[in-house]
């Protein structure tokens, strides 16, 4: 009996080992395993054995054989599943450098990229972002900025005038803003200090386009109005911006200059880690007349303002030789950045 059991087990194991596919393992499972399988059938012959001990031993042997067969089935099933998966994976091979189609990401304008980077740095320094109209009144663009009618400095702005006439107003008093500074005035008139804003925006000059000039370009302007603001605060803020935007090896300096809307006025330069200086923008302490135009008492409030061009930042960052390229809207240019 025991030998029959052993033989059956050996035969079953041999069949399992030889099963070529998962389907064959399923067939074998039905044939060999479970209460109705070939091995279980051997149990019926146990009754023919005389001794209890023999019956016990043979019963144990059948059970062991069944367990061994089940284990072999499971192992073979796993083995075949793995082989099958491997061959499927192998059959699915792709050449990933065989790329059909084209990139589908859109590209933000370079000015926008620079604009948002600048905004983010200033937001990090505690500034909010303010905006204003691009077509402005003469009052906001000049007069409130300490440039009354006839002020000689007005000529330096190469202003573009438009034919809009305000109700009851004079022709020639509506301009395309020549700087973002009118936003200073609007902010002062609309909000109570303390004011900590930057105003990025589009500005206009009657300038013939060339490699470094466009009649339509972009500036960012900062304004701080608070109690006890000093020129040292201006220097410190410019320095903080310089390091935050350009990097820790960069430094800044102020040197005297002239703008009608600030006094004292200063240009600010940035020093590269290699020691070279680059002129960046203009700044200064807000002129008392400008504070007054903004409805603020210069004996109570003081502040500083600064501004510089955005286009140039984009142009220099990417080594663009001619600023007009940035405005040609040529997709071959746009997709480079």
């Amino acid at each position: 009996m025991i030998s029959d059991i052993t033989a059956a087990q050996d035969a079953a194991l041999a069949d399992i080992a030889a099963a070529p596919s998962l389907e064959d393992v399923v067939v074998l499972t039905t044939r060999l395993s479970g209460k109705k399988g070939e091995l279980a059938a051997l149990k019926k012959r146990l009754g023919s054995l005389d001794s209890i001990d023999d019956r016990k031993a043979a019963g144990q042997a059948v059970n062991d054989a069944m367990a061994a067969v089940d284990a072999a089935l499971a192992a073979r099933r796993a083995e075949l599943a793995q082989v099958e998966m491997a061959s499927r994976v192998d059959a699915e091979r792709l050449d990933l450098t065989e790329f059909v189609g084209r990139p589908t990401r859109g590209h933000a304008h370079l000015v926008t990229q620079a604009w948002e980077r600048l905004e983010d740095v200033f937001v990090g320094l505690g500034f909010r972002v303010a905006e204003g109209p691009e077509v402005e009144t003469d009052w906001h663009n000049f007069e409130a900025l300490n440039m009354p009618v006839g002020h000689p400095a007005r000529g330096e702005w190469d202003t573009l005038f438009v034919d809009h006439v305000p109700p009851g107003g004079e022709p020639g008093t509506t301009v395309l803003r020549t700087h973002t500074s009118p936003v200073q005035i609007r902010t002062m008139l609309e909000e109570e200090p303390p004011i900590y804003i930057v105003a990025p925006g589009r500005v206009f000059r009657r300038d013939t386009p060339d490699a470094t000039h466009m009649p339509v370009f972009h500036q960012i302007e900062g304004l701080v109005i608070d109690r006890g603001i000093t020129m040292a605060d201006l220097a410190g803020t410019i320095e903080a911006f310089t390091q935050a935007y350009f990097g820790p090896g960069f430094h800044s300096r102020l040197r005297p200059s002239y703008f009608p809307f600030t006094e004292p006025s200063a240009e600010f330069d940035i020093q590269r880690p290699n020691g070279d200086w680059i002129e960046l923008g203009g700044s200064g302490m807000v002129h008392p007349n400008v504070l007054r135009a903004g409805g603020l008492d210069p004996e109570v409030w003081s502040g500083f303002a600064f501004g510089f061009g955005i286009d140039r930042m984009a142009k220099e960052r990417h080594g663009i030789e001619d600023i007009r390229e940035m405005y040609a809207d040529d997709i071959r240019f746009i997709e480079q950045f």
Partner: protein
Amino acid sequence: MKILLSWLNEYGDFADPTDPVAVARLADTLTSLGLEVEAIAVIGDTVDGVITARIVELVAHPDAANVQRVYVDAGDGERLHVWCGADNIAVDDIVPLAVIGTEMPNGMKIERRGILGIDSEGMLCSARELGLGDDHAGIEILPPGTPLGVPYGDALGVTPDVLLDADVTRNRPDCWGYVGIARDVAAKLGVEFRPPRPQVEADGQPATTPVEIVDGDRCARFTSTVISGVEVKPSAGWMSARLTAAGMRPINNVVDVSNYVMLELNQPNHAYDLDTLGGGGFRIRLATAGETLTTLDGERRAFSTDDLLICDANDVPIGVGGVMGGLDSEISGATTTVALEMAWFSLVGIGQTVTRTNLRSEASARFERGVDPHGMPTAIKRFAELLRETCPDLVVHAGGADEQTSHLPPAERSVDVRIDAVNRLLGTDLAVDALPGMLDPIGYTVSGSGDVRTVVLPSWRLDSTDEVDVIEEVARHYGYDRLGTTVPKSVVHGGLSVRQQRRRRVRDVLLGLGISEAMPNPFLAPGTLAKAGLPVDAITISNPLVTEESVLRTSLRPGLLQAIAYNESHRSAGVRLFEIGHVYPPSDGELPAEYEALTIVLAGEEAPAAVAVWRELAAALGVGARIDQGRVPAGLHATRSATLQAGKQPLGAVGEVAPAVLAAFGVGERVAIVELNLDEIIDRDPKPAQWRPTSRQPSSDLDLAFVLPVSIPAEKLDKAIRQGAGSLLVDLTLFDVFRGERLGPDGRSLAYRLRLQAADRNLTDADIADVRRGVEAAATKLGAELRS
């Protein structure tokens, strides 16, 4: 302002021109004072190999229009041949000749290089080529009698010098003169300042030139001094050299002294030949309309009633006040007696005349910024002192005219300065006693005691009127670099506004959809709006650079269509572009009805592509709008476009650009388009989406196809299905649209998948049957027919 260092050193010991370190230090000092040095040029460094030569013969060559053949004699009697492109030379002129082998300051090496097969034995040089100055108009011509064959530096008495190019800002009128610059630098460096102190007396017999100022607001002071014993001849070499280096061409001793005094003391002036001065006097008045005068530059100009003329006593114009003299009143070789004008003009008036006539001069540039209204007496004496060097018999006559009007700024102006205000603005901790040390040397005289001091403002600093002007002077002379670096102390928080955040979101969504950002010119050509089929009412620029860029856009569409056309012409088809930018429709208000717009154009795509973009954007921004094909926006495709309507408010448009417009813009592809008024969309965040629990019960899909005439919008069928399906419908997708002959020209089949699910139980067949019945009923009512 070009500053010749040797000239500046006349008023103080500033820097040795041959010491580059000292020169660089001086340049830094100027920059730290607000006189930004933009360039430092070493001049007068003699170029080895350049010698003096006399022109012997000039020969034109028939095949070379722009150059001529020149024979020169370099002192040894031999004829050397050179080619020369300048036309200011004549036989017997003595000129600098760079011989073969000379290395020029710009690095060029002179070679025996000829043209047309004829060698050149050297090169004749301009002042700039020799590093002598800026003049590159022609060959430098040396004074007659200059010895031949000697190094030109020796012949000219040229010594090494430095030319500093400093940027003078509008608030520093004094720095348009050497003395003003020297005063500032001397104060900063603590060097002794030596301004000219001319010792000339008006001791000649009294001689007057009557002066009548008619328009006293425009000319507030006019002095005229009679000087006789004048002999017109070339200036001394040192003066010619200085003027040349400063970029002015020496003319004769009278004109040169006039220019010299202007450059030195910032006092423009004009010498008239008294013998030819009509009526022997002056009348200063506004021009009559269209009155003409030929100015020194040879142009006959017409003037307006806002332009100031200097006339002689017979009322004949002889000059444009503060701008330029008349051609006919120039002094001549026969002049022996001059009437010397020194005057003060209204800054604004000069500026207006300059702008209107586009006539500008060294004098007008100075008057426009403000010369010292009280500097004439010294300047007159200085003029006489310098002219006497070449005219030993010169006499200054007593009794010169000095007319002043009430518009002349007073000689003494003062302002109170609080040390407190100084420190509050600068963040310094200066003692009040530090003020005189910083201010007195630059002519701001501090007096009084206590914390508030009276400061008398210098007459040459008309820009200074208020306390803050004096504070700026303190800051300059204290040093901007010594101010601290602190940061403001207020607790504020930065951030982007809702609008700014949502603008970025719009951009991010579009970039993610593969659409790139363009920035076309906001100025359009006249007719472009009409070409785009848009309303033509627009604001125009009154003084455009070019007419093609004179109309303010009222829509972003034309610019983007031009961008597509441009890209198509460069073989870039299928571009997908968007712009976020302002448009400026006209209005009756204080300002135009400017708003922020968004336009998206998809070249080579059809209207549904635009709808898909709109839907993505609407979902991302949490806005909704009806696609109203009943209202076709101007310039868009009549059967493929719609207004986006939020309630009664139009938000924008979606669809395709009209074929006629595309043709007009030269665009070959179809163009799908979305246009939005961002002002209506990005100012407010929508309410945050609220959570709906997702059902854990199994769902079931029901596919239904309907035949719906194209005259009924699919949107309505959507709505009917939703309504008919009731609360078990959790998702509705239109997954197929089919048009075929069987359905007729007006028919189409729309296939929808309805996902059904109950929140709390399994669906039964009866549930599904109910939904189907409900949907069918609603669809039938609309005019749709369920296909089985």
